[in-house]
């Protein structure tokens, strides 16, 4: 068990000396080089830093897409540092919503089918899936686009479908790796407003990577990475 924080609350995320190395010998890359981080329920954290500083690597670990090389990772106080592939898949399925930079929607499935996908793996009945996917699409303002293929939607709409897919299971943690990276500034602002709304009004914990200070302004806390380490951790403008 991880140490409870000062408030006595078990943190949602706790990283202690977490490392992730790629390659061996000469070509060893210390993508994460000892990360300490605590994130409580309900936070909205922006992760910033130069390209190659380890932001995506950290997100992949937080989202259980990958296993750390060393250090400890706790989720709700449970040590999840050394799980195998299927155990991590179960954590993803049950607790995580991931919004990728490149949307990563199934190209040949409709928006609704994409949103229902996590529910399929939760073995939910078709009627219930339909109900929940309709609600998730409504939350991102795409009620009338359920039967469209991703290719028939704009970039901002595709990203909103991806957010709906991440939300549909009501995850404990929403992770977004440069969710606005491919979008124009107006669409980006829409997406950020949506995330702020989800965090503030629905209490969803969000960790979001961005290299744009404009976007980081929406967060309540900004963590900055450099060369695989956290170099600063301060409240953001969204805290006001």
């Amino acid at each position, binding site marked *: 068990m991880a140490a409870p924080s000062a408030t006595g609350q078990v943190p949602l995320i706790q990283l202690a000396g977490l490392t992730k190395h790629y390659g061996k010998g000469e070509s060893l890359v210390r993508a994460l080089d000892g990360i300490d981080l605590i994130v409580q329920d309900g936070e909205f954290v922006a992760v910033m830093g130069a390209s190659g500083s380890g932001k995506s690597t950290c997100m992949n670990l937080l989202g259980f897409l990958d296993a750390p090389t060393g250090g400890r990772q706790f989720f709700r106080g449970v040590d999840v540092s050394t799980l195998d592939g*299927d155990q991590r898949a179960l954590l993803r399925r049950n607790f995580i919503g*991931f919004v990728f930079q490149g949307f990563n929607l199934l190209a040949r499935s409709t928006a609704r089918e994409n949103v229902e*996908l996590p529910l399929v*793996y*939760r073995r939910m009945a078709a009627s219930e899936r339909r109900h929940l996917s309709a609600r998730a699409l409504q939350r991102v303002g795409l009620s009338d686009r359920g039967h469209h293929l991703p290719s028939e939607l704009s970039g901002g709409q595709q990203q909103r479908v991806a957010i709906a897919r991440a939300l549909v299971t009501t995850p404990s943690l929403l992770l977004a790796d440069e969710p606005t990276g491919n979008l124009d500034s107006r669409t980006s602002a829409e997406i950020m407003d949506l995330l702020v709304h989800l965090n503030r009004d629905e209490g969803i914990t969000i960790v979001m990577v961005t290299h744009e200070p404009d976007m980081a302004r929406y967060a309540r806390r900004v963590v900055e990475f450099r060369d695989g380490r956290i170099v600063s951790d301060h409240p953001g403008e969204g805290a006001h």
Partner: protein
Amino acid sequence: MFWSTLLMALQEIRRNALRSFLTMLGMVIGVGAVITLVSVGQGTTAQVTADIAKMGKNLVMVFPGSGHRRSGTAASAPPFRNEDSVALAAVQGVEAIAPLAAGNLLVVYGNKNESTQVMGTTTAYLGIREYAVEQGRMFSVSEEHAGRPVCVIGATTREDLFGSQDPIGESIRIQRLSCQVIGVLASKGQSAGGQDQDKVVLMPLLTFQRRVAGTPDVSSFFVTAADEIDTSRVISGIASVLRERRRIASGATDDFTVRDTAEIAQAVTAATSSMTALLGAIAAVSLIVGGIGIMNIMLVSVTERTREIGIRIAIGALGREVMLQFLVESVVLSVLGGLIGVLFGVLGAYGVSRGLSMPFVVSPETILLAFVVSALIGVVFGYLPARKAARLEPIEALRHE
């Protein structure tokens, strides 16, 4: 979960309709070929067995010479005599016996002549070989004892010599014998050996011996064994009587042969069954080729859909769920191909049986087996691609273009 996986597989197959069809073609051809060839083989067996059964029920044949009657030893072995017939009739389990003296002789009527199997026998022969008289009558026992020049002809002989003319009362000539036709036999068709059993002339044994052959020889006996007694006991009973009558020393081999139709049927069935198995095996090779085709396309499909698989895994699909998805896809492909193959195979078998006028035999076992084998091929050849998909690392798969 299983139904949605099945649904997903069907969707995927429909999306790539042309490719799926071409992939299935291997299975269609393989299963179709197996079913057609095995059915044709089984049809042949059924026909041959039926032909043998038509020779007569519980039929036992006795020939001079060891081994087959057409082998050279027959010539050197002494023929039978009329008195043997009386002795054999007393053997337990012999229900009826007909001695036979026969030759392939020219039969002449008017300006027509035909080489025909001419047989001198007794009235019992008709019942033993299950011939029926269609027109006129069989010669009587008194005609038989008197050696009258009367004869009964087969349907083909009647057709060949008389055409549409009424043969009853006409005289045909066999060598120097002029013989009155008193009856026509109903058609029996070809024998198992492919001989026309309707190209025959029957006459009393004495008539044949005295006025055609000029010898008292009997060339064979046809025996009906009683139903309630084991045919092999009848055969050994006949053999021991003949050994005694022909004075064969104990330890010496028989100079005659006794065999029953069941024995012949067994030998023929064994031959046609192994032919069926061989045909089936050759066709089965194409099934394996079909399976490799499925594996090939599934491997391509996994590579093409790496990103999709990555998304599914990233969202929380377990390795075995991804594996199941691809296995179900390949099984659906192969089973669908197999079903279409069964359809074509049955049609093909029907066509062949029609073309060769053979019995149409499609056993449900063959169809069930084809079905199970195609499902199995789907699993076996789908396993490798499915495992490849299941083992993808989510991050790498997502990065795949």
